């Protein structure tokens, strides 16, 4: 009897924390999403799906969703391809290769909050670092964070810059794990550079690519620090991303019900996304034995 129970007992501490910090909040959020609960209704009132309907009718919600999709897609595509490109280059470099690795990895060790502050200063219009050099080169000044058409891309640039070194190091580990004999064999068979990449290198690092893809999705959907510090979601909600929007609704506006509804929507979206990714792409990943 005890023998059968034993493994479960070992799982207990971890389960305890999972329940308190993950499962309970998730179910609590789902439960609260059916209540009107804000400063106009200080004690919560059950209203069924009205929070969901209110949100779907709210243009701000769709704007935030659109921003989040743009943010995620562009950070994923740009940072992964750039990181892979850089990893291949660094892998070829013999002279001062650790210098390049350290230089590219450096942003990863800076806390996002500090990095966001630095970038906020660089983005200052007219006399900030970026505009200063643009001016010297004869380009017009750009109002990086106050122009609703540009601000989101300024935020995206920070997100890419912050994580690219980390992804590059992971790709580099993948590249260096490819047995040299495989590449040599491909060369003997007469494969050119592009063929070597698409038929040997890329498939061999697919488990790394998949892992980077997953953490990239997580990082991009969790983006809040740089929004909080650099723009507070502005101008005119053009940089408001889903997690910041949840924070804003739940804590700044005290719309607990709406905050819970947004959380529920995000959870469902993530569940669908992750199960889709594991079913479709996850199966094609090659794990070396």
């Amino acid at each position, binding site marked *: 009897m005890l023998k059968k129970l034993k493994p479960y007992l070992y799982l207990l501490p971890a389960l305890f924390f999972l329940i308190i910090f993950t499962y309970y909040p998730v179910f609590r959020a789902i439960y609260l999403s059916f209540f009107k609960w804000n400063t106009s209704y200080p004690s919560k009132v059950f209203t069924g799906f009205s929070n969901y309907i209110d949100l779907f009718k709210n243009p701000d919600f769709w704007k935030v969703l659109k921003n989040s999709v743009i943010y995620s897609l562009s950070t994923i595509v740009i940072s992964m391809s750039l990181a892979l490109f850089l990893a291949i280059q660094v892998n070829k470099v013999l002279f001062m290769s650790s210098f390049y690795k350290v230089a590219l990895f450096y942003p990863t060790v800076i806390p996002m909050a500090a990095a966001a502050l630095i970038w906020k200063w660089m983005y200052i219009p007219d006399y900030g670092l970026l505009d200063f050099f643009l001016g010297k080169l004869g380009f017009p000044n750009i109002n990086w*964070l106050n122009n609703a058409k540009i601000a989101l891309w300024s935020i995206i640039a920070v997100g890419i810059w912050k994580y690219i070194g980390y992804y590059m190091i992971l790709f580099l580990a993948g590249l260096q794990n490819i047995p040299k004999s495989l590449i040599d064999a491909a060369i003997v068979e007469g494969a050119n550079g592009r063929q070597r990449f698409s038929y040997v290198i890329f498939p061999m690092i697919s488990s790394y690519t998949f892992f980077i893809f997953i953490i990239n999705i997580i990082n991009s959907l969790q983006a809040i620090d740089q929004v909080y510090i650099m723009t507070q979601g*502005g101008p005119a909600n053009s940089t408001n991303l889903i997690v910041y929007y949840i924070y804003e609704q739940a804590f700044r506006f005290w719309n607990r019900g709406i905050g819970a509804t947004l959380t529920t929507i995000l959870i469902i979206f993530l569940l669908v996304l992750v199960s889709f990714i594991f079913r479709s792409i996850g199966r094609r990943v090659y794990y070396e034995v």
Partner: protein
Amino acid sequence: MSKKILLIILTITLIVSLGWTEGKQEEKGVIYLRMYYPVGVAGALAKLMDSMVADFNKSQNEVYVESIFAGGYREAMEKAQTAFLAGKPPDVAVLDAPTLLTLLDINAIIPLDTFIDQEGGKSYVDEFIPAFMKIARHDGKIWSIPWQRSTPILYYNRDFFREVGLDPEKPPATWDDLRNYSRKLTKTDTSGQVSRWGVEIAINFWLFKPLLLQAGGELDNEAGTKISIDTPESRVVFNFLLGMANEKIMPAVKQWAETVNDFTAGVTGILYNSTGALTHIRKSTKYDFNTAFLPAYKRRVCIEGGGNFFIFKTTKTHEAAAWKFIKWMTKPENTARWSLGSGYIPVKKAAFNIPEYKEYTDKWPQALTAYKQLMEVDTERNMMTHRVNEIVKLVNSTTEEIMGGADLDATLKQAQAKADKILEAYQ
């Protein structure tokens, strides 16, 4: 085997019990109070607050106040609300005065009339600058005591005025003056790039409301249950601002802190900002500058702003102790001391006769501008509504949209609909 189980259970109990350990316990006979306070710029002001609270603690031995720095106004309100919901509100807090209606909605604070009556009622209230008491009243009761108060004022760079041939003693008095002066002050290089703006007005409801009042409009109603933004008067304001932005004498969108830095760095000739920025500007600019009243249009009017003391619902003894603390902090000499360190306006009239403060205003007459404006110009209430944080965000982002080039009519119409939706429970 059972040892292992015991160990696991012990570990769990230990971890759980850690959550229940209390902080500081009340010592015998001393009432221990927790105060949340925000300051815009951390550092110097937080130190000043801590030393003032320490002086209060030394001045008597019945009440001990712990001052807890809580970030900016928004963060302080978030923390106070969360602590209240968790059943452990601060005993006393300095919060943005317009959060009154939200604090009443969640039933978190007590009225102060009983305490005020003990101090002499009307005569005690009359010690404060009257314009600051408006926002403390609701439903015939007084709910807060003014602490760090301010008004928007105009800062202008006298060096630049001289440079372009304007009289440095004649700041712009009307909107027309403002536009004309800004045209003269703007510097554009050969490629059409603006290297110095005429005027900068940050996107902020607190600068928008006075403009709207000057144009003859209204923003929030007395009860705080409605705001009017889709009005002819708001179109007058936006057209005025857009006109200056299109002429490239004012940047269309700038944030609060950026405009202050621009003024100290000489990137703008004129600045709309809080009197609370005075000390910072005085210490960080090399230019000769002065302060002035806000330019007028149809009306000569401004608004007030800033933080008040609120007492949270706790116990009778704690509430009385909190009042004792507030009474001490707002003594003329103490409010003068806070003003000297910050640039805020002393909340009591008598503070202006304190020798140290007189010495300061003799040396820096700019510091008196806000006070004079309060006394000589119509001063209306800061924007105060229910769910005020959402309304603030709405007004700010509507302004950002319009100044960013969105269609005026459609944006205002949509903003009005959003505002009505936010406040629908109060109609």
